């Protein structure tokens, strides 16, 4: 079962690397925020999988804090980008 979980974690990590393409070349800044959000969610799932691969229970606390931090970062960036007079980053 550990080998299976390792394979799942590797597949999700490769997905996250592919999603970095949208965060790098996304035409608008909202695309970049969305790509970073998706990469963060996949990292969260990989941390949860590492908890059971390594059989170390404290990684779940790291996952909870990571989920909270990801939510705050995305909402704060979105509210910041809503502001008037903000120039589009080319």
């Amino acid at each position, binding site marked *: *079962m550990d080998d*299976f*979980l390792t394979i*799942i974690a590797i*597949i*999700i990590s490769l*997905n996250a690397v*592919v*999603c970095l*393409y*949208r965060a790098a070349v996304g*035409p*608008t800044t*909202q*695309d970049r*925020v*969305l*790509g970073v*959000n*998706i990469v963060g*969610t*996949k990292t*969260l*799932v990989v941390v*949860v*999988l590492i*908890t*059971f691969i390594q059989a170390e*229970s404290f990684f*779940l*606390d790291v*996952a*909870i804090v990571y*989920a*909270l931090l*990801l*939510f705050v970062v*995305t*909402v704060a960036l*979105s*509210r910041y*980008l*809503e502001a008037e007079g*903000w120039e*589009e980053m*080319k």
Partner: protein
Amino acid sequence: MAKDIVAAAFCCIGTFFFLLGTTGLLRMPDIFTRLHPSTKCDTLGACSVIIGMAVYSGWSWDVFKLILIACFLLLSSATCGHAIGRSALKRDIRYWRKESGEVDDGHNA
């Protein structure tokens, strides 16, 4: 063992939805259509994998933490998608139109 089979099935479903989300994020034409597969990838994919891990871990305190993470992801991914979509709407990013057939990059709005 039955527990491992159920956990493996949930993990496979979650990985499949992650693949769908990644494909949609790369292939969709503008930000509003990209929001749709990416939030599905958050809710269905991540919550399936986390529920599978909750089944695999058995009865312990880890189950409550995993259910807490899953419930928080259900709330936060919808809120993040709405916040990004409202931000794009207020910045007047143009939609992709099927008639023109061209991908609008948002700079010529």
